[in-house]
């Protein structure tokens, strides 16, 4: 599964994207955020407040309880500020 990061989440993680092998117990988008926090101090800093992290699964907005089985790309990013 590919994980992509944007804005200050990208800056804090220190990566634009990464390919990860997700263990079977990581079932939802929210589980993925918790699991990614353990990967590095940068991940932990970027994802320290999971309630404000927005999630997209295969380029569609998702809630933390959405299953990620079969997903190709999960994106994590701050609240959006376009327009």
């Amino acid at each position, binding site marked *: 599964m590919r994980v992509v990061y944007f804005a200050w989440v990208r800056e804090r993680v220190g990566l634009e994207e990464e390919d990860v092998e997700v263990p079977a117990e990581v079932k939802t988008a929210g589980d993925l955020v918790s699991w990614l926090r353990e990967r590095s101090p940068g991940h932990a800093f970027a994802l320290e407040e999971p*309630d404000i992290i927005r999630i997209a699964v295969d*380029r569609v907005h998702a809630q933390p309880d959405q299953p990620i089985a079969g997903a190709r790309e999960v*994106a994590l990013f701050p609240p*959006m*500020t*376009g*327009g």
Partner: protein
Amino acid sequence: MANSPSRTVPTPMADPAAVEPSVRVGTDPIDVAAETDALTAGRTDVGAVVAFTGLCRDEAGRLAVLELEHYPGMAEAEIGRIAAQAAARWPLLGLRVVHRSGPIRPGEVIVLVAAASAHRAAAFEAASFLMDFLKTRAPFWKKEHLADGSEGSWVEARDADDAAAEKWAHLRTEG
């Protein structure tokens, strides 16, 4: 509000009469006149065009450049989903959305939403609806670069924008 952009807005039923919106994201400057002209060219049934342009402010001289980051692929798709909802909800004759990415200087246009309809209410409301949902759901992020050369910060999302999008669930549609 936590996770508010993830609230689902119902996907509109397929309506063969609904207009096909034009959605573009790119680094080129936005030609507002050309975009609005395209809504009326060669037709005489349009009675109203409402064009909203969002501009980059200089924040009292503090800001040098606003850098627009976006999620390629999803940005266009999400604006397209919002535009399709507007086209299903109001009797539009045309709908164009153009959003800049990359570096933008004060005075330049960041976003254009232009809606055409027979009567004004549909065009006004559709343009407002588009902007309210674009603000909270389209994956763009603004970073400030300051005129004094110092490292700017990411613009924070505003609760007022969430509230503006939320109100559409309760409003009656005119048009």
